[in-house]
């Protein structure tokens, strides 16, 4: 860590990323250091196993899904630009943004969370997908019947058009009382 100093010139697309995501120069620099640290073979790209080294992530019940969300479907590696773009979802949102739909808007945050459920990206959370997430979060601590009843209740509450799946709009509606910005934001220093 930190054997040589880096500057914004070393960071690929540094200036452009700053403009696009709204991160400060110092934060981008630190994220670059972190990316470099995680990139054990120094290939400039991260693979799923590089994330596997993180202990706190390994104990997170949905850790695998979070890792998966960094990789586009079919991609096996993520470069620094994409890494920062995903993390940009977690910036606290501001009121006066010039961009129309910045990465950290409430909608984009919701979309990110939606995709954690909707693994096949068909725009709906099916009952099977919901069960998968519940099983991941609860492990062997509940029985199959308990799991089914929890899923049943959740779908009944959220599924307004009764197609036995939760679309993105239904998802958004069920969460209208939640302060998305607060719960899906990480406070980056400086």
């Amino acid at each position, binding site marked *: 860590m930190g054997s040589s100093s880096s500057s914004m010139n070393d960071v690929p697309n540094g200036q452009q990323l700053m403009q696009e995501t709204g991160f400060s120069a110092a934060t981008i620099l630190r994220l670059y250091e972190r990316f470099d640290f995680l990139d054990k073979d120094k290939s400039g790209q991260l693979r799923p196993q590089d994330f596997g080294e993180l202990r706190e992530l390994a104990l997170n019940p949905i850790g695998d899904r979070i890792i998966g969300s960094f990789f586009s479907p079919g991609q096996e590696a993520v470069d620094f630009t994409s890494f920062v773009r995903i993390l940009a979802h977690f910036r606290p949102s501001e009121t006066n943004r010039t961009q129309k739909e910045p990465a950290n808007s409430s909608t984009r945050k919701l979309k990110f969370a939606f995709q954690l459920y909707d693994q096949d990206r068909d725009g709906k959370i099916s009952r099977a997908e919901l069960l998968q997430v519940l099983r991941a979060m609860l492990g062997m601590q509940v029985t199959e019947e308990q799991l089914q009843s929890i899923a049943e*209740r959740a779908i009944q509450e*959220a599924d307004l058009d009764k197609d036995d799946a939760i679309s993105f709009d239904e998802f958004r509606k069920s969460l209208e009382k939640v302060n998305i910005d607060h719960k899906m934001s990480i406070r980056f220093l400086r």
Partner: protein
Amino acid sequence: MTWFTFPADNLLCWWLSISITVWLTLLFVFIIVPAVLGVSLGVRRLYMRTLLKIFEWATSRMEMGAKEKNQQLYKPYSSGIIAKEPASSLQQGIQGLRGSASCLRSEFEMADIFYFCRRGVESIVDDEVTKRFSAQELESWNLLTRSDYNFRYISLRLTVLWGLGVLIRYGILMPLRVTLAVTGISLLLVLTTLVGFLPNRDLRFFLSEKVHLLCYRICVRALTAIITYHNRENKPKNGGICVANHTTPIDVIILANDGCYSMVGQVHGGLMGMIQRAMVKSSPHIWFERSEVKDRHLVAKRLGDHVADKTKQPILIFPEGTCINNTSVMMFKKGSFEIGCTVYPVAIKYDPRFGDAFWNSSKFGLVNYLLRMMSSWAIVCSVWYLPPMNREEGEDAVQFANRVKAAIAAQGGLVDLIWDGGLKRAKVKDAFKEEQQKLYSKVLVGEPDQADNKHLEDENPEDDKSH
């Protein structure tokens, strides 16, 4: 008539012998005699204060240099990239997510995933564990290239100062320290063997204590270690176990400088083995053969026998099992806490500005590490002796270990982590993930014996739907 043919040679010999004599005399008078008597001349503290002033000056020069170039001085992220929420339990986290209105409903909500999602991404950006296994990063530069991050802002003046520093450290300090170390170790070998021959037991104990202290004091000066001991009234007594946080093999020298302990460890070969055999002749240390280490009952029995004998010195153990970088305390292995005697916790905190004492065993071997230590400015540390602790009624070894760990972390200003130091080499066990799943399931379905009540409620969906 040889002296005609080689006048220069003669002069050289003469000059060399004079300088060596002067050198050794100075060494003897200013370092070894005070070590023998246990007196400090105060030179090292003066040295420390001077160094601090120089470091501050160096950092301010670098900041000025950076301002001239209109750039910000890159400060390593020692304080973290992100501000994490104060550690709350899973229950509090999810409760907070749902808001107080729905705290009565213990059902799954779609928003619950936000909690895990955010925790996961936070740990991708900055996690507590991986940064404990590499050297701590400094706020200001201490003129050692090994801890520098701002190469581009070093002006000519600083480079000259740095060069001077290199000359002093490698040219003057290091030979001095190596000489002292060699003296200290050979004295230890010789004197402990001699004391071992004495027939009278009491005299042997008395002398071996003096000999050990003397040799450790010389070793401390060999490292230019400036140690401040706090609360010496709590020093470990006979028949107890002393536990401390582990940063480097030098911890042993630092603690043994102030008191006599029985060491525990594996039998080594070579120089270490010789030292071990010599030490055990004059005082009872516990060395295990490699094969015996695996047998936990044998280990526990030997330790238990030792503490039962009140004439024997306290045992020194480092329960973390591995070197951590002195910013946190990791999980204590419960073995030493099962023995059932008084535990004397000790907190050791190194000041990283003068030289980082952490031994990153995956990066440097032991000899390399010792050379680095001898070429740093100094090793400055504080040692706090904490009040003795005993296992309480109804407390098991693990809880006792955690209590002691918390006390050490609090005193030393270190972060108290639940993680196992063995994680340096191994992967997280699935048990940890299960733990998280258990906690979450408690939020949803309550304790296992309440699950039956929940089942009854589930069978009456109409009643449930009313709220």
